[in-house]
């Protein structure tokens, strides 16, 4: 069957496909996007091939506006720099691009998130004597802190959606002023460096956004799930009252692009 712009039905695509497609739709044409490894790569590449052909992708290892013809497996991959406008380094990516204010959208992952959008990718338990260590921050907090919008792409599990994360690796809407530890809105911590913050969280079950107080709510639920099921997969009391219905499902054409053009080798989409 030829790929069409008709919507696929639940069962005709995998949860990860919905996730990648929903994330791609967060990209506005012309956005300068700073993306992490994995699903963020699929999302930006799919967006560039569909609704956002003028979007630019920056990877933190230093490739600026690369045009990979083979999917990179990490942001430092040689493939990221293919046909790039610049093959620079981290100083350019983090300071020349991000700190200077070029970045519209951050596309990132996370191990745990709380209701203010604070993300933990560092430890479980008290940092000074942790029970488990994850990989660590990487560029997650830097990219999230100074981009105008951030979209987190995550797996929906009760243990990952927490009232409070054990360690704030990446700043959400309510954080602390250090060294005092006084709690404050992100705007007050960043002062004139404030540009925005977490705008959406996309999981395999739904799309979340943040209210005026900086608290997460369910915006749309993916086809095949109910808002209550999403709520059951959060360990805090998720606001589902603002859920405006189902997420627009992937089209056959989008699924086709994901499997045949973006990730034909089955790297992130087995």
């Amino acid at each position: 069957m030829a790929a069409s712009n008709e919507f696929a039905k639940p069962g005709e695509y995998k949860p990860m496909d919905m996730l990648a497609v929903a994330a791609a739709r967060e990209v506005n044409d012309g956005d300068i996007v700073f993306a992490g490894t994995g699903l963020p790569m699929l999302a930006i590449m799919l967006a560039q091939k569909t609704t956002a052909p003028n979007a630019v992708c920056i990877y933190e290892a230093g490739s600026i506006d690369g045009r990979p013809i083979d999917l990179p497996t990490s942001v430092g991959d040689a493939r990221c720099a293919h046909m790039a406008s610049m093959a620079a380094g981290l100083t350019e990516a983090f300071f020349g691009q991000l700190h200077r204010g070029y970045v519209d959208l951050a596309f990132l992952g996370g191990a745990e998130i709380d209701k203010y959008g604070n993300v933990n990718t560092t430890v479980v338990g008290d940092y000074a004597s942790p029970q488990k260590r994850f990989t660590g921050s990487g560029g997650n907090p830097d990219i999230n802190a100074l981009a105008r919008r951030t979209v987190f792409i995550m797996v929906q599990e009760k243990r990952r959606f927490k009232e409070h994360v054990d360690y704030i690796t990446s700043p959400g809407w309510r954080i602390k002023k250090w060294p005092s530890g006084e709690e404050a809105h992100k705007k007050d911590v960043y002062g004139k460096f404030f540009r925005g913050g977490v705008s959406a969280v996309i999981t395999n079950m739904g799309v979340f956004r943040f209210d005026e107080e900086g608290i997460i709510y369910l915006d749309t639920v993916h086809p095949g799930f109910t808002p209550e099921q999403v709520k059951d997969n959060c360990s805090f009391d998720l606001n589902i009252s603002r859920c405006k219905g189902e997420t627009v499902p992937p089209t056959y054409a989008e699924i086709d692009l994901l499997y045949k053009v973006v990730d034909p080798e089955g790297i992130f989409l087995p």
Partner: protein
Amino acid sequence: MGKPQRITIKEAANLIKDGDMLTFSGFTIWRRPMALVYELVRQQKKNLHLFEVNGGTHTEVLVGGGCVAIWESCWVGHELYGKLGEMVAGKQVRSEMIVEDYSHAQCVARLLAGAYGLPFLPTAHSMGTDILNPKYDMLGRAGKRDGSNPKIPMKKYDMMHDPFYDMGEILLMPAANPDWALIYAQAVGTEGTVRVHAQTYTDYEAIKAADKVIVLAEEIVPEDYLREEPALNLATGYSVDYIVELPWAAHPTGSQRFYDVDADFIRSFYAASKSQDSFNKWADEWIFGVADHQAYLEKLGITRLEKLRANSVLGYSTRVKRGSR
């Protein structure tokens, strides 16, 4: 400062003393000076202090080999081929090593300040995170910020109000000036000019920030060849102290235009890194069980290496199987 000296890999490792502070070229699993890392384990170095912008397979080899006392960085893992840095994680959980976390850009700020000869650099990166929670200043908690070690700053960071444009509170990150930068580069001229291909990562900053620099060169090439296009070069010969010419010195990490990441090798290392016992068996086979880099390459075998060899146009291998299809 003169021309760099050509030495062997064993001599290079011999120069590094127990307790020295090291930084590295590369990014996670790309362009790491692996042959020298193996030799440091073989020579059983102790109490090394790593300051690195990000960690990777090399970090895990050094930590598993019992060489590291302090790790300052922001990330460790093997990308798609091993999701955690098990050796670092285990030692952090058991409090057997001091782990000091910064953010990625904060690490860059520290190395950049060191590279430019500045004592610190201001940045707004990652404010409001637990990285800055004073309770989590692990070098401070260990009593290491008393000024007695010139390589450890007396504070993890400071904050100040921007006095010039009233931008608000901004972070100050202390410079990092490691004793050694251990660098892998694709091309080094006969007078030491350094060139890398594709992304530069923080290789320039590492070379400039360190007191002494050892470069493992995939190839030593005529100096004139590099000087024909000086804009493509990363560093001058007089900023490099020692050169070792050693093909495949970055294996199993990747080297643009020369070879791809050896995913299978890293996957099997990652599996072994889940316990000290299995790490030790791995090290017995791949580090202590081979006499030198030549024997290591012979053990890997030509078939495996040929598969990793980069396509000469694309700069990476098109013959490695990377996914499930």
